[in-house]
């Protein structure tokens, strides 16, 4: 079962690399933004993976539970809480970027970053 964690880690790494490639090398601004989302989600998946425990239980301590057994078997709740916040922040950032992209498209009539963000606009 530990392979699940390894697979998730590899997936998160792939997300980040694909996202970086799209953000750096692709010209279309929407594709760039999708790439940036990939980076964000890769980081979130990485955090979630840290909390994973094979055959683990939900991290809620109920009366009657053996604390030692609970500590050894429960998933780690902290990364889950962190990721929840991170997703909200990521969504806000994405919304702002898409809104600016819409304005830039209306202004320049193009989605090419070379045309709308290039030095000729400086």
């Amino acid at each position: 079962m530990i392979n699940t964690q390894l697979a998730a880690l590899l997936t998160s790494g792939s997300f980040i690399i694909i996202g970086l490639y799209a953000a750096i090398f692709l010209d279309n601004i929407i594709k760039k933004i999708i790439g940036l989302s990939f980076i964000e989600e890769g980081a979130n998946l990485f955090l979630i993976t840290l909390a994973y425990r094979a055959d683990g239980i939900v991290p809620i301590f109920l009366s009657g539970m053996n604390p030692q057994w609970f500590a050894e078997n429960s998933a780690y709740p902290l990364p889950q809480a962190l990721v929840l916040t991170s997703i909200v922040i990521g969504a806000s950032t994405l919304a702002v970027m898409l809104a600016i992209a819409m304005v830039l498209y209306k202004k320049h009539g193009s989605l090419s970053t070379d045309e709308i963000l290039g030095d000729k606009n400086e």
Partner: protein
Amino acid sequence: MNDLIPLMVIIPIIAAILLNLFNKNNSTVKILSFVVAIVLPIIPLLANYGTYYFGGHAPLTDYGTFLSLFPNSILNTLHIGITYSYGSMQQILIFFLFIIAFLAILTTIGERKKISGTYMFLMFMGLASVVAMLLSDDIFHLYIFFEIVIIAQVGIVLASNHKEKYETAMKYMILGSIGGPMLLTGIGFLLALVGSVNITDIVHVVKNGLINSYSPIFLLSFGLIFFGWLYSVGLPPFHTIKSDMYSKATPSGSALLQTLSVIIFISIGLAIFRIYNGISYVGTFIIFFSLAAMILSISMALTETDFRRIIGFLAVGELGYLGIGFGIGTKLSLTAALFQGLNEIIITALLFIGFGTTLYLSKTSEINKLGGLIENNPKTGVMVLIGGFALAGVPPLNGFQSKVMLIQSALDKGFPELAIIMILISIVTFMTFIKIFHSIYLKPKPKDLIIEDNKIPKSTTFTMGVLIIMCIVLGLMPSLVVNGFNAFIGGLI
């Protein structure tokens, strides 16, 4: 009065939400912004030093039942909730931050007939975010407010009238969307190693040798967090976009943007210093990027003809002094860095708002099209000149005091070359400032230059006057703040 500690974050957030709600009502927005801005500086003066545990979650050692089952576990000392720490450093910086915010809001109210509630929302959200970053002892909390402050900064730029504002905002957001997740991934690696995101807990684990300071994962976390820090403060390779942001915002907006950047620099910089101080080459890394910021920024400032971009580059270059203080890593250098940070907030606010009056009068920021403004605007010209002297480190102003401390700390540590570079950069900064000042105020007025309105709003003159008084008072009596910074750093090292 520890309950006042979270209020320094909560009040600006509530004010921001209300201002956004009353967006359409101009007088309500003006009155509410003014009242909140004038009340905020009082809170840090009233609050007691100490810690505040959100949700009442004190460190686990305060609970007997569950943890008594793990008597020798490190769990006993872990902080399970978000902790705010409030000491002398936080008090001084937050007090001055609120004063600068008040002056920026006052200038905005004075210069604009109609105030957007959304713009004020962004100002207050940015303010709340950096205060939270200063107070927080939780590195994930730092990340969250780091992301919020990026959006607030972008919003402040979008509120200006500059025709290229959307392009600059998009570039900043794209880079931020790379820098933010990098910071988050670095925090993830720390979490994987330590199991906590509380900075005190992480430092406890590192200092006690429970993890290897040179393990690849720990070094990787440093690299990622360092990358996020470079982006957030505008050190190379992000110095161009940062100065671009300053040049696209309104003058009062630029003053606030630079203030936010300095506070982010200090907050994340101190976290990096505390966590990674054990790695021998961290200081060298910070010094390298700081020197690069100083040299590249001043070189680019020399070639520019737009005074807003020049001041933007000078402001980014000045951040290099802070970095050198952090990189040297002694008690004196860190104290000097904090003092320099405070001085930079005051001086660059003065310059952004002071030179902003030129834009207000002439509607251009191209120094080649300007000249002779000393005849129209002598009072402001003199005030800007004093600001320039303070920036360059001319005695007896505040910039002189902090730069002398930084140079002294470099010499004490055995880095005379650093001291020489700092002196040289100060001289070039002074020359650059004189170039702009001469072009705008002293050279003959071009025939085609039209000055539409000779009256500078009284609120702008008042703001500049207060900032100059701060420069002089802190220059003559640096102990007013240096003792507080020194006490804080003493507890840190």
